[in-house]
């Protein structure tokens, strides 16, 4: 019966007074077996990371501490054992990998030294063997040229390589348990797919039990054997992956799964015959860095290379690509937050790039932008109504009219009238993003550029914002330039998609064509990498209601 290698019983973790709730984790019980990947899923603030830290004894005590329950490992309660004993277990029997490998690795030590230190701390074996073991393991995590990697510093590796090195470090002592806290969230989708496969394979080869913490149901569908769903510190659903993913019981799980955007493109009205509102021709931008006053070797990055596209009225064009593909640069060139090197940006019959900054000003309001970070994109010292009214006031509207308009817009984006006298920090991420959208709409733009507008949001909030954006687009006949790295999101909102790689549009076509019949090798690779692509989330109407 009891084949668990790790068993959490009725764990409760207290939060300090004044936090938004009393306990981070309440009455949480879970058993982890050998040879399985157990995914803990939840939105931000669900207590999933705190739970993992409690296992490792890494809670920021005394403010946050486990106040009840047991965590059994090797017949010992990890909440009771001495610090010394815990140190022996950590890294040796239970190890952990983190979200951001750049900050989890020591930047001034080589990868080799850091991995070796782990062995050194726990075992006494000769150096030759240590090196051999490291090289074997680096081969295991599929890092090319292990000798070179061992003598590299973290900044010399790519994000994916760093995460592989972290995994190697975690597995070097063959731990019984690997805890992975959002290990692929900071990575690009193709790298994420490789790391997920790697974790899956290593779990099999090394008989490890993996506790995998994530917010992404796609990732869950990709690797989980069993799934635990957390909400506000409670375990609301726990079961086999197939069962939870395809037949969720708890209403919260259902709402979460329903909010996962489907990879199947949504059918939309054709827009081919609509008038063109924006034409971009041969846009180029190269970033130059490194060359100082006295020369030195310049380092060029071409962020946009002969970029061409048109946007029609009412169209949503998605620009899809991984980090560094130049998609944000292109968006910023259109509104001239970044000056392009060459090319044309035609808004109707006006060429924007040839205008001086002063001449450009009246045209500014016709293209507005919604930003990624709902925390950084609102001036913290302005009340919400003023934030929205500032735009129209810049373009000559009277203060009173502008504030009236702000109130209408707040209503339009689904915020109540009380919000207008409050400051941005009093709102949640999703609400702030609504404010950002209202601010952009205040100028009655023809084109809305949305730069990763939902990437910083939880999946349920994400669905609401996406819905709001498409609703507004249809109601106000807006054109939308939607920049995203998430193909699921793109499938739901875009009519056409341009796929970017290293500053170039490698494929451009209707969403349906791109998803069903991708021509370019890179597009195919991207689609292959979407986590959980073979899993089709049950829609609310498919589920028995209760």
């Amino acid at each position, binding site marked *: 019966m009891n084949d668990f290698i790790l068993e959490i019983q009725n764990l409760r973790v207290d939060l300090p007074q004044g936090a938004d709730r009393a306990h981070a984790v309440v009455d949480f019980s879970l058993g982890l077996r050998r040879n399985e990947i157990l995914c803990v899923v939840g939105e931000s603030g669900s207590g999933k990371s705190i739970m993992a830290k409690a296992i490792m004894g890494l809670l920021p005590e005394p403010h946050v501490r486990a106040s009840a329950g047991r965590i059994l490992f090797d017949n010992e309660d990890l909440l009771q054992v001495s610090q010394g004993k815990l140190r022996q277990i950590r890294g040796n029997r239970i190890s952990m990998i983190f979200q951001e490998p750049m900050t989890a690795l020591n930047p001034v030590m080589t990868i080799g030294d850091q991995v070796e230190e782990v062995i050194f701390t726990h075992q006494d074996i000769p150096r030759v063997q240590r090196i051999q073991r490291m090289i074997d393991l680096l081969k295991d995590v599929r890092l090319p040229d292990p000798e070179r990697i061992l003598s590299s510093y973290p900044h010399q590796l790519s994000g994916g390589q760093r995460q592989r090195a972290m995994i190697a470090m975690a597995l070097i002592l063959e731990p019984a348990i690997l805890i992975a806290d959002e290990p692929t969230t900071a990575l690009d989708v193709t790298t994420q797919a490789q790391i997920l496969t790697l974790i899956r394979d290593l779990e099999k080869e090394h008989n490890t039990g993996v506790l995998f913490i994530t917010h992404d149901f796609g990732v869950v569908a990709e690797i989980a054997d069993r799934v635990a769903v957390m909400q506000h510190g409670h375990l609301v659903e726990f079961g086999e992956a197939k069962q939870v993913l395809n037949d969720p019981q708890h209403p919260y799980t259902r709402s979460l799964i329903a909010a996962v955007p489907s990879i199947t493109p949504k059918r939309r009205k054709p827009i081919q015959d609509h008038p063109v509102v924006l034409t971009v021709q041969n846009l180029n931008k190269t970033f130059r860095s490194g060359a100082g006053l006295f020369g030195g070797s310049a380092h060029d990055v071409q962020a946009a290379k002969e970029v061409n596209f048109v946007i029609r009225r009412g169209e949503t064009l998605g620009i899809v690509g991984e980090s560094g593909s130049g998609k944000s640069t292109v968006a*910023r060139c259109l*509104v001239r*937050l970044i000056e392009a090197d060459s090319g044309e940006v035609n808004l109707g019959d006006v060429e924007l790039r040839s205008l001086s900054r002063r001449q*450009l*000003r*009246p045209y*500014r*309001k016709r*293209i*507005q*932008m919604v*930003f*990624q*970070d709902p925390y*950084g*994109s*609102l*001036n*913290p*010292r302005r009340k919400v109504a003023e934030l929205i009214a*500032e*735009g129209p006031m*810049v*373009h000559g509207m009277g203060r009173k009219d502008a504030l009236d308009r702000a109130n209408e817009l707040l209503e339009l984006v689904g915020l109540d009238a009380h919000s207008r006298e409050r*400051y941005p*920090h009093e709102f949640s991420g999703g609400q702030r993003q609504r404010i*950002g959208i209202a*601010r*952009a709409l205040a*100028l009655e733009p023809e084109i809305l550029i949305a730069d990763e507008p939902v990437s910083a949001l939880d999946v349920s909030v994400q669905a609401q914002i996406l819905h709001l954006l498409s609703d507004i687009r249809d109601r106000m006949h807006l054109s939308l330039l939607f920049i995203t790295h998430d193909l699921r999101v793109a499938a739901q909102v875009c009519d056409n998609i341009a796929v970017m790689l290293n500053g170039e549009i490698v494929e451009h076509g209707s969403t349906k064509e791109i998803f069903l019949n991708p021509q370019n090798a890179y597009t195919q690779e991207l689609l292959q990498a979407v986590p959980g692509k073979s899993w089709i989330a049950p829609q609310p109407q498919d589920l028995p209601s209760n």
Partner: protein
Amino acid sequence: MQGFWRRFRRNRAAVFGLFILVGVVGLALIAPFLYSQSPFRVVSKPFLPPFGEYIFGTDVLGRDVSAGIAHGARTSLLIGILATVMAVVVGTLVGGFAGYYGGLTDDILMRITEFFQTIPSFIFAIVLVAILKPSIESIIIAVGAVTWPPIARLVRGEFMTMRNREFVQAYLCMGMGDLRIIFRQILPNSISPIIVTGSLMVATAILIESALSFLGLGDPNIMSWGFMVGAGRTFLRSAWWLCAIPGIAILLTVLAINLVGEGLNDALNPRLRHL
């Protein structure tokens, strides 16, 4: 505002500093009523020791030292505050434009700033006062001219990070003018460190002013603490109070301003800031 006072009060030393500072400001305000005659007027025999007929005694010519202290407080505070205001205005403009526009503007403005920074500040102040004539205006200009570069560097750094914040980019997209973005949007967001640095700079300005007056480069018609220390220094062994009393006045004022500055820093820049 209440939150501000609560955080300020948490720093005991700052409250102590504020207490002294209020005393000095009070003394400066009532000086013309307390000692309505000129502080240069001879009132009694020279070298009367303190705590006798005159609370701080008399100096080499028989002038009342306490009247000098009271009027000197006016001079020190006036010069400290005006010179700092000048330094903050110049520093904020230079640093703000450099940080906001970047590129060539930044290069030019920062080279000018570095030019001012590379000259030893006190010697530069002496040269300036010597070229202009020794008067209260020229001292203010000299002190302001040597203290603005650190403010410019600070403001530049603040503006450079703010410039790339998305809310500033949103204002640019709106078509808001640069000056309005700089003064109405970015400046209020970076005002806290400017206030803190500015408050500490008042102390520096007072010290520079005292040192200039000590060397006899002060305005000859205005009583100042530095001048008093300078005038009394040859009699240090026979009449210690001539140097000690204005010296202590400088010490306490500068200490108080520094403590208040620290307190402002704690109150304005807490890690988690709630508006």
